[in-house]
């Protein structure tokens, strides 16, 4: 692995990695079970440098913002390296957002260049919102059919400058990327992450879980997500490891990829981990009685022998078929992005597959605490990573308080939002909004949220306020959206739901038409943003002098009501 203390930016570190591991494979790309591409670090460089030169010929300069909206694939990483060579700032966006959401974030980020796939560009360019975003001057599209109408874009494949690009150095404190942790519809939350943030995060993570040449990391989470950028690109590259991309993330292709590419590490969100568990359990249940008994006996032996620490070689022998199904080289599954249920984590650990349960947030540079497997714990999110300070602010009698984080991985702030930045980073401490406490072993346990937000099992942050735009114009006196957990704290971080609270005009009845209107508007929201319950509140909402709802006070008043009695299904 490279000694990251020597480098001042992502681009500089990656440039060194390309020189250090020229003959190692860095990327494998597969589509529907068929391998489409395999690149060494040398070949990666040969593709990235002409693009970097081409971007410079198009005028890209230090600090210019370049957005990437792509599925996980080789051109994503090549584009990212090229823009870092030019000293650009990356704005990675989730390809799953709707076109109008993309345009909103492109506008907010002031991106001047957009790199995307042709199919996504067709949807983007058809959106009327395009006209409102003049800051995007250059659009590069990949994989456009030969006779395609590029709709004002240029072919990515044709952007080939001649000669070497001029490598533009950046300082550690310079902003490397603007990552949207959530917030479309309301107020976009663009986390400004510096080169220092990434270098410090990578150093901390690899101190406990290093990669090495020969490692194959299966990149499933979208690369715009800070986790995948770190463990599915930057981390593996500075260690000479390889990243495997699947162009289609259907469960059958994901299952097949583990064995085919002998995957070493993968990061999954709880939803996918649970799905894997379901599939495995169904297969165990189908075993004939005698085989089932033998399997259970082996599992029990494995549990007894791995109580204190994982023993991979032993587990692979004891539960051979299970491990072979995963390719036989799997070192661990990293789980993050949202809160995992302990029984799911334990299920895998009992099979001899270490599960590294982690906790983090984009604002904290991704990982904050990670399970060190000494020993495995399913009931916590692990210990603070080296170099990252974590404390519990204003703990109650049980020691539970808001988790606060300090260190070189904490973001510089939210783009164009000094007020929100000041609320979130207080005296150098990042206030996470998550409630937790440390146990006697120094492991962090989480107990719910202080913020009016939810995190879905797919790792999506949804701020209640951002969902309200879907209900604007609703014929009621006033309305508000809350995370149910914010009103009625459950001390749980799973199965979180949003509720819509409405207050009718005087004399107005709650009619079936109104209920249908709410349901129809709700259905127009992306599925993970939908509200799951409705409260018809009888009193006026508490308002500020400027007639804004005082959410905290309203939440307290609602909290005095019994959740089961007042929440109606939508």
């Amino acid at each position, binding site marked *: 692995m490279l000694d990251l203390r020597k480098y001042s930016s992502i681009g500089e570190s990656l440039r060194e990695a390309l020189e250090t591991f020229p003959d190692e494979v860095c990327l494998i790309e597969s589509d*529907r079970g068929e391998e489409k591409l395999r690149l060494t670090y040398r070949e990666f460089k040969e593709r990235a440098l002409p693009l970097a030169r081409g971007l410079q010929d198009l005028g890209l300069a230090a600090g210019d913002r370049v957005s990437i909206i792509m*599925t996980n694939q080789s051109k994503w990483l090549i584009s990212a390296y090229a823009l870092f060579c030019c000293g650009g700032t990356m704005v990675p966006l989730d*390809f*799953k*957002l*709707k076109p109008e959401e993309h345009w909103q974030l492109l506008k907010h980020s002031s991106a001047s260049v957009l790199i995307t*796939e042709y*199919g*996504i560009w067709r*949807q983007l360019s058809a959106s009327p919102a395009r006209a409102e975003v003049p800051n995007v001057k250059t659009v590069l599209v990949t994989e456009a059919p030969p006779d395609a109408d590029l709709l004002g874009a240029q072919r990515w494949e044709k952007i080939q400058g001649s000669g070497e690009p001029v490598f533009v150095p950046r300082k550690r404190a310079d902003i490397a990327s603007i990552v949207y942790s959530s917030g479309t519809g309301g107020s976009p939350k663009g986390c400004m992450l510096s080169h220092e943030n990434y270098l410090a995060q990578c150093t901390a993570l690899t101190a406990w879980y290093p990669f090495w040449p020969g490692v194959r990391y299966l990149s499933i989470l979208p690369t715009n997500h800070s986790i995948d950028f770190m463990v599915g690109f930057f981390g593996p590259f500075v260690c000479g490891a390889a990243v495997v991309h699947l*162009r*289609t*993330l*259907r*469960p*059958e292709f994901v299952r097949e990829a583990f064995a085919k590419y002998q995957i070493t590490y993968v990061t999954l969100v709880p*939803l*996918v981990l649970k*799905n894997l568990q379901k599939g495995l359990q169904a297969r165990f249940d189908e075993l004939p009685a005698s085989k089932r008994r033998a399997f259970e006996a082996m599992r029990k032996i494995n549990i007894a022998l791995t109580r204190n620490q994982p023993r991979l070689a032993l587990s692979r022998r004891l539960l051979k078929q299970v491990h072979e199904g995963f390719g036989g080289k799997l070192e661990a599954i990293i789980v993050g992005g949202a809160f995992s249920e302990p029984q799911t984590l334990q299920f895998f650990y009992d099979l001899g597959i270490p599960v590294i349960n982690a906790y983090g947030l984009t604002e904290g540079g991704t990982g904050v605490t990670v399970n060190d497997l000494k020993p495995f714990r399913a009931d916590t999110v692990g210990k603070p990573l080296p170099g990252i300070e974590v404390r519990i602010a204003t703990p109650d009698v049980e020691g539970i308080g808001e988790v606060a984080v300090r260190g070189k991985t904490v973001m510089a702030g939210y783009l164009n939002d000094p007020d929100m930045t000041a609320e979130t980073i207080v005296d150098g401490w990042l206030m996470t909004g998550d409630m937790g406490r440390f146990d006697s072993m120094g492991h962090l346990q989480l107990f719910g949220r202080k913020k009016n937000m939810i995190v879905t*099992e*797919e790792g999506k942050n949804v701020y209640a306020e951002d969902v309200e735009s879907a209900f604007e114009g609703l014929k009621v006196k006033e309305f508000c959206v809350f995370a149910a957990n914010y009103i009625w704290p459950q001390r749980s971080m799973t199965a979180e739901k949003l509720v819509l609270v409405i207050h009718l005009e005087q004399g107005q009845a709650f009619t079936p038409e109104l209920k249908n209107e709410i349901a129809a508007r709700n*259905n127009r929201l*992306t*599925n*993970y943003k939908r509200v799951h319950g409705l409260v018809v509140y009888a009193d006026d909402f508490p308002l500020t002098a400027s007639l804004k709802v005082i959410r905290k006070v309203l939440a307290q008043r609602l909290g005095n009501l019994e959740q089961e009695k007042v929440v109606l299904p939508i």
Partner: protein
Amino acid sequence: MRTLEQTTQEVLELAANHFKVADGSLHAGDDFYKKLGIDSLQALDMLSRLENHFQIELPDYEVQGVSDFKTLAERIQARL
């Protein structure tokens, strides 16, 4: 060449069969996440079945954010 109505009908039948619900219980305007109580991974699983049936390739991004059968059928129709 199928009409959009035929494509929609076939999508509904295939989804009913895949998720083991009664034929005729699904409708074009239904939100499949809600109606079938499925998650995004199960929806992706259904897409593979649809690809095989219609002999087309549907990139993941084409169907992300789609939650009703009608829009799904339109996306498929555009690729037939």
